[in-house]
């Protein structure tokens, strides 16, 4: 890596990449800040808002139109994009550490499908809940159900694919396909029995986009995501230990079961809330951690926070592309990410063909 030469010799330990990882964090903060500004400034409203944004940042009064565009449309959308991107990338990195495999992505192995299933159940059958409970849950019903769905599917996947602390990749991917098929079938059934109003909600929800972001949507999704972000640093050391297998991790002093439980909960919270508000955007969780491991190594203490920053920036860039490429219309962001992520995934497979035999 180009950055390796910058590390002062004699100070750093050979093979220790923590300095580069820390530098990368600073660089990614700058990148993310730039992406946030670009996401606020660029859009389909006809004019570029760079000057308006500058005025806004300086605290000057804006025209009503500009204020609506910036404050009510672009700002929640930008924050949502950053949060969803960070949540998907962090959950990918945590899952890969938990399953000890770089291909474990929530979108690929059925965790997003599980979250979507939970969301659909909540939309179609939520009305059957006692009114008092509906009042308590309110807006949080869909994200919470998505969280439960992704939690259950992560636990099932881990149980099926892990024997004696060793995860079989083939079993994991196949179990993910089976789980996705099953939840897809039941979801289809639910769509079939849904009434017209529910169908409308389902359609909007399923578009897989952050275009419809509003402040209220943001506030329903944010708490669960923040839970995941708070939990992530606590599993970093444990995931490092788990890279050597569960027994070795335990011998190194890791509370393995607690690490696994926390990791699964964090993944479920992040994926559940991201899917609940964005309908599930693929490949962020596999592209981002993989690139970061190539650049500065697999140490989860740095990988998780760098994943959050790069994931947020990547999703914002993808969202900007989705806004401008066929402006004034918009492409769903899921398409942009699939165009980036599909070939990337194939590239990983080509580079490491032996990976499925692990």
């Amino acid at each position, binding site marked *: 890596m180009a950055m390796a030469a910058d590390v002062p010799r004699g100070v750093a330990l050979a093979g220790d990449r923590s300095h580069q990882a820390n530098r990368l964090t600073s660089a990614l903060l700058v990148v993310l800040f730039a992406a946030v500004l670009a996401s606020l400034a660029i859009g389909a409203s006809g004019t570029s808002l760079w000057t308006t944004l500058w005025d806004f940042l300086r605290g000057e009064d804006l025209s009503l139109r500009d204020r609506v565009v910036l404050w009510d449309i672009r700002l929640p959308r930008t924050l949502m994009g950053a949060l969803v991107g960070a949540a998907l990338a962090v959950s990918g990195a945590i899952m890969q550490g938990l399953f000890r495999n770089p291909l474990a992505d929530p979108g690929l192995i059925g965790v997003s499908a599980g979250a979507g299933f939970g969301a659909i159940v909540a939309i179609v059958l939520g009305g059957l809940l006692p009114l008092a409970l509906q009042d308590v849950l309110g807006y949080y019903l869909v994200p919470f159900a998505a969280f439960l769905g992704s939690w259950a599917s992560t636990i099932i996947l881990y149980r099926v694919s892990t024997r004696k602390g060793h995860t079989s990749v083939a079993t994991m991917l196949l179990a993910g396909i089976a789980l996705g098929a099953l939840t897809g079938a039941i979801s289809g059934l639910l769509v079939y029995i849904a009434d017209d109003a529910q169908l409308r909600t389902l359609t909007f929800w399923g578009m897989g986009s952050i275009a419809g972001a509003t402040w209220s949507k943001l506030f329903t999704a944010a708490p669960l995501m923040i839970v995941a972000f708070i939990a992530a640093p606590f599993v970093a050391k444990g995931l490092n230990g788990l890279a050597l297998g569960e027994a070795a991790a*335990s011998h190194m002093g890791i509370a393995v079961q607690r690490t696994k439980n926390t990791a699964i909960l964090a993944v479920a919270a992040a994926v559940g809330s991201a899917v609940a508000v964005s309908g599930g955007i693929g490949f962020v969780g596999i592209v981002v951690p993989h690139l970061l491991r190539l650049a500065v190594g697999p140490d989860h203490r740095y990988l998780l926070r760098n994943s959050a920053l790069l994931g947020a920036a990547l999703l914002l860039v993808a969202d900007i592309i989705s806004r401008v490429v066929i402006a004034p219309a918009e492409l769903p962001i899921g398409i942009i990410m699939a165009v980036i992520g599909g070939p990337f995934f194939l590239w990983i497979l080509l580079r490491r063909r032996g990976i499925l035999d692990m």
Partner: protein
Amino acid sequence: MLRAENITVHFGPRTVLHDVSFDAKPGALTAIVGPNGSGKTTLLKAITGEASHDGQVMLNGQNAGSAKPWELAAIRGVLPQTTPLAFPFTVSEVVRLGLISGVTADQAEIIPAALSRVGLADYGARFYQELSGGEQQRVQLARVLAQVWEPISEVGPRWLFLDEPVSALDIAHQLQVMQIARDFADAGGGVVAVMHDLNLTAMFADQIALISDGRIIAQSTPDEILTNDLLSRAYNCAVQVNTPPSSGTYILPHMASMGVH
């Protein structure tokens, strides 16, 4: 003091260890030897808590079965036969994993020291997955050594549990690794090693537990264990101790010593 009492291990319907009792002292290298499938590794895994078992394991007067992982990690390191590694860590990063918890946490200077102890001083920046099997095994030993760097802690002796530590190594590195274990014991730590090679065992062990068919036949000094009678019984073939074969080539590790002459 390590004391394992009445250890019984079942794998499904099969009983792999029958009511085995075993002990080891700090300051000594205790070897567990026996034929393939006799339960050597299983006994070590029961002692380290990896294999679920009946019976009790006491380590430094503490019940190992109920101690927290980080309490145990502070006083003992465990080297498995093989260690899979999921992600592309460098050698230094693997050794650093040994510092995750325990008293040596964040003493980064131990990393190069541990690597040079196993003869891999210049390997820090190499990728673990690109090393040979024997080199990987020595990196893992460096990781375990880093975890229990000082053989004696404030609360008592530290322990090394080694599962066939030399099986993947050439003769020079077999001697080197056994010498590391020997030095750890001489400095006051306890070493328990599952051994396949009876010659190396004879050279380095203070105590030998001979295990056959899931039972310990005898535990004592090398002189008393390495006899024609006991070994023949345990290995189920006529074993001759101290009698070089009358014809053919043989290698005697006793005649080798570290370094090039």
